């Protein structure tokens, strides 16, 4: 009897927690299918008219394209730099490896607002205007610590022997990186890339501070919101959410396949 009660209360607690986390997203998605002018109850759907509207909105589509470009290129840059930093710290640790690790990871504790402001000042000083490139640099900075941490955590000592074996058989440094380290670290590299792309795709504050004419999707949604609530904003938000979730799903499936292949 007591156990039964325990199971029921655990279930209720779980449902309440999931509701707390997901209800706002569910409501957002639900009212993107609203038939009518306002995304508020009662629900009078379903309808795809707001998606049609969203996909026909050239500013929204331009922002979506910008977001894709920024996400992919900043994720690529952050993964590349993170990999190189992790490789050198794992394989040829310099004298102050601990400090280097600390300074690589430290930006993770600084708020995006502060990083954005700092970049704004610096770009101003060097005469670089607000642009997608500036946003991409900002996203590279915030994602580098994560990419570094993910890849560094996967470098093990047994990989060290593989690198040494390759050197021993006559491979140069670049050949060892490209032929041995990168393929072996592929799952970690891919995971880091997907995570960085997702975070950049969702990021708002830095994108808002550092862009002017060409904006990313979150910034565009913010601008649409200023004109008032509309199911079109819900539709745009749903698109952002769906693409984030798909990226995470692709990463998870790829990891499962790679892990399965090794056994």
């Amino acid at each position, binding site marked *: 009897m007591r156990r039964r009660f325990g199971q029921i209360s655990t279930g209720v607690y779980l449902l309440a927690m999931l509701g707390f986390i997901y209800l706002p997203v569910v409501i957002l998605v639900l009212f993107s299918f609203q038939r009518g002018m306002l995304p508020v109850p009662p629900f009078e759907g379903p309808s795809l008219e707001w998606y049609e509207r969203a996909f026909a909105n050239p500013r929204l589509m331009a922002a979506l394209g910008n977001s894709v470009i920024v996400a992919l290129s900043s994720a690529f840059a952050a993964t590349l730099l993170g990999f190189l930093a992790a490789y050198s710290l794992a394989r040829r640790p310099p004298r102050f490896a601990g400090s280097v690790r600390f300074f690589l990871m430290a930006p993770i504790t600084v708020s995006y607002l502060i990083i954005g402001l700092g970049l704004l000042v610096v770009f101003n000083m060097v005469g670089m205007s607000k642009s997608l490139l500036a946003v991409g640099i900002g996203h590279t900075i915030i994602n580098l610590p994560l990419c570094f941490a993910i890849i560094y955590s996967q470098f093990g000592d047994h990989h060290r022997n*593989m690198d040494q*074996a390759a050197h021993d*058989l*006559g491979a140069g440094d670049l050949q060892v990186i490209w032929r041995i380290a990168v393929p072996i670290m592929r799952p970690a590299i891919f995971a880091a890339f997907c995570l960085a792309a997702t975070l950049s795709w969702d990021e708002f504050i830095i994108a808002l501070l550092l862009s002017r004419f060409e904006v990313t999707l979150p910034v565009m949604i913010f601008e649409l919101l200023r004109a008032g609530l509309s199911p079109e904003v819900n539709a745009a938000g749903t698109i952002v959410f769906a693409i984030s979730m798909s990226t995470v799903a692709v990463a998870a499936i790829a990891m499962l396949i790679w892990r399965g292949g090794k056994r």
Partner: protein
Amino acid sequence: MNEVLVELKNITKRYGPVTAVEGIDLSIRRGEFLVLLGPSGSGKTTILSILGGFTQPTEGTVMIEGKDVTQMPPAQRPTVTVFQDYALFPHMTVEGNVAFGLEMRGIGRAERHRLAEQALATVGLAGYGARRIHELSGGQRQRVALARAIVVEPAVLLLDEPLGALDLKIRQQMQDELVRLQKTLHATFVHVTHDQEEAMSIADNVVLVNGGKIEDYGPPERVYLRPATLFAATFMGDSNILSGRVVSAGGGSLRVDTPIGQMALAGQAEPGSDVHISIRPEKIQVGPASIDRAASNTGHDGGAVLLGEGEVTELVFQGTHRRCRLKAGPDGGTELLARVPLDLDLAVGSRARLGTRVGDLVLLRN
């Protein structure tokens, strides 16, 4: 066979205040199967790593084929190392692994394929080229690692405890195959192990390493039968160690007082100094019959040495013989280990006469 291929001259390696190896001098001849034997932490792997170029010695020089290679990185040395964990590349096929060194040397695809197939056939893995590494058993991975190393025809093949991860049965089989491989290729192998039986069954010469120094060097039979030091006598198999004091010396022979009697043996030491004498268990003869046989044997090893009587405290059946522990000496204070034949009439608690031959007493250097 007599040409010196590798020379280590006065090699010392320190890590901060810790000395890993000190003052190592070692020559390796072409075509030799040399085994570096020692307990873990003895420095044997450091010596191998210095040979391979993965570790820079603090002092000393490494010469290979007459050239000073001390500062040369592993890639440029005529050595290839087979790592303890094999360090195979998991994302490549078996052939991709074996051909890797050839590819790095710029050898064309067709030739790579031919040489890789040939190397795989040599290690008994013909037709395995397309397999993935994770599909192979431990013994097969070991063979791939060997094939990957021999295919580039190194002047010296360095093996870092390559059989450590294998089951006993496969390990013994691989020992035989290593020797066969080394003899067919006329190659020079340097093999590191902590397993003295493995060392004895494969080595042309054993280098016994302890505490960063060479304790003994020579053919396994010599090192086993006439160990140079106390460590060599105890590390290579079982041994009875008697401590004694030299009472007289001269003409290359000594008389030594031990707890189980005075004995004469070959060797040099100052009268009055403390020495250790080693006797292998199988060299101790137990019972009246054996003593007579020993007494009748008057080869160049000299005559019998009587070790007095002993009381049997333990008898353990070992298949081909019984392991026998005895208390010997006037007060029964010296424990001896012997091997006795199965048909000898002995029981725990019975007394037996003990003997050996002069030639089986080995004076140990301290």
